[in-house]
């Protein structure tokens, strides 16, 4: 049993709107990331992926509010801590976050090095500029970025370079866990690959111990992470190893997501993409039963009665559906046969 870096137990957080309505965007989410492992979170836009990433840091600011649950980073429970303490002693050193629009994260009027100086001095005010420069240079060089980037302004860098600079900056204090929230969605495929390679390098060179990677691109998750969790309407609907989830999904929503994979491989032209009809439910008034019931092909009357718990299945995986594993597999098989004929 290896060391658990991040453990989250039944975390619930909510957004409060202007009209005092509560939106539970993260609803009783539990997860566990072990040392040297990476976890992928998949789901369509608006399912709560980014809210989960924000909530994991334990740093809440209105309109995001903490409701219940526990976050334990390497044995340390951070749930009851004051925001200021979290900022000083957790963010950057224990847990680090790459925002979705990392392209805009750099200050256009500052050189990259002065941005890094700010980050480092916030945690250690006694470090000299020379020390910080040496630290940044060695970090950038290990990650395959030229040291000249440090003396440049963000406008002089290309999108992929900016993204990689932000990643390098976020790991400069050697956090235990890095949360990457769609780091490559605004980049083209070539820069995306560089970013992915860099994230893999981080793990190998010991900059970080674990990685949480959030995206809606399943082929990417499959290649980067060991485990995948699928999120829908604030809840985890499926969890398991990358291979299990991609090639043998159980939950109908996960199955639907797999239908949208496009890869440039032989036979792709003949594959009919299956989009999931409908839109996710409004989380202001979540449905009483299964949240996916409205869009599900295999819906039954008892789906809409009571909330569905997370069932565990063979091979250490979990899924949130009232139908049994065998029923679901049989239904998918029937469908595949019907499509083939």
């Amino acid at each position: 049993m290896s060391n658990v870096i991040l453990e989250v137990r039944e975390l619930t957080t909510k957004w409060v709107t202007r009209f005092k309505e509560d939106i539970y965007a993260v609803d009783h989410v539990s997860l566990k990331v072990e040392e040297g492992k990476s976890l992928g979170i998949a789901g369509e836009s608006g399912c709560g992926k980014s809210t989960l990433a924000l909530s994991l840091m334990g740093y809440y600011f209105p309109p995001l509010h903490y409701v219940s649950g526990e976050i334990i980073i390497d044995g340390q429970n951070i749930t009851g801590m004051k925001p200021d303490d979290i900022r000083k002693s957790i963010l950057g050193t224990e847990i680090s976050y790459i925002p979705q629009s990392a392209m805009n994260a750099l200050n256009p009027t500052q050189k990259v090095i002065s941005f890094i100086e700010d980050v480092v001095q916030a945690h250690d005010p006694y470090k000299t500029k020379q020390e910080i420069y040496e630290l940044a240079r060695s970090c950038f060089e290990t990650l395959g970025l030229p040291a000249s980037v440090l003396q440049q302004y963000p406008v002089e860098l290309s999108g992929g370079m900016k993204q990689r600079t932000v990643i390098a900056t976020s790991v400069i204090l050697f956090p235990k866990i890095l949360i990457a929230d769609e780091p490559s969605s605004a980049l083209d495929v070539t820069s995306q690959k560089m970013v992915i390679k860099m994230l893999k390098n981080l793990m190998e060179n010991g900059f970080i111990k674990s990685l949480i990677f959030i995206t809606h691109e399943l082929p990417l998750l499959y290649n980067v992470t060991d485990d995948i969790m699928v999120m829908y309407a604030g809840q985890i609907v499926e969890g398991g190893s990358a291979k299990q989830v991609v090639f043998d999904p159980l939950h109908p929503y996960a199955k639907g997501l797999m239908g949208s994979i496009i890869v440039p491989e032989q036979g792709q032209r003949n594959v009919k993409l299956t989009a999931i009809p409908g839109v996710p439910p409004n989380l202001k008034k979540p449905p009483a039963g299964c949240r996916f019931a409205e869009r599900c092909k295999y819906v039954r009357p008892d789906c809409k009665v009571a909330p569905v718990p997370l069932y565990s299945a063979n091979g250490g995986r979990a899924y949130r559906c009232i139908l049994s594993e065998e029923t679901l597999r049989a239904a998918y098989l029937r469908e595949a046969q019907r499509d083939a004929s």
Partner: protein
Amino acid sequence: MPAERKVCLSGSGLTKVFGFGRRKTVAVDHVDFSFYEGELVSIVGESGSGKTTFAKMLLGLLKPTEGEIYFQGKKRDISTQKKRKEYWKNIQAIFQDPYSSYNIFRKIDTVLLDCIHMRGGRGLPRAKKLEMMEEACSFVNLKFEELTNKYPFELSGGQMQRLMIARVFLLKPKILLADEPTSMIDACSRATILDELMQLRDEIGMTIIFITHDIGLAYYVSDTVYIMERGRFVEHGSADEVILRPKGAYTRRLISDVPKIYEEWDLSTV
């Protein structure tokens, strides 16, 4: 594909140079192309390869430095505003960012009504107009009753992009230029949009020029693929030919950059 294919849009020696002297950037460098009627063409290249500049020249939003564009065999003439408007009846575009494609002060009904008016339907009875709008919305699987009296920003990104396709359905242009229509949309809605584009091609028989950086998408949708590298078309041919049997090193690199699931994804090439 029928044997005698009519060329819809073609060009020779099309060039665009930005700046001059030492700061000269050749964005598009003497490209020759011919797009046939009813064809779905993809233009694939990494960022900065000149895809968007090329698209803007086709649309007539940028003036080419050199070279000519031929529309249906005749030289394209957009020297005056009137001629330009006439040309724009034949070519329409869907842009990358659906959030900034709409006029935020106009309701969805107005957006669609304008399209009917542009096609000369100003004098039609109201019921007929409503019917046309409903047809366009049902074509993209949107419910017209839910959209009336709403503003475009109340929709999700995927729905906005689909509304854009509904506009094109009403306008029925000869050419549709789709400049990375799916890059800001998540993977689930992407499948719907691609399928609707293909449906549009089959139904109206328009030429669709699909610009993307993801060669996987290009392979899924297109008949013909053009590969663009530093402002030049380095390879073109049918989708199967280019993607399954690539000749150039650049094409091979583009293919290797897309994450795979059935094969090993080689990370060492960058």
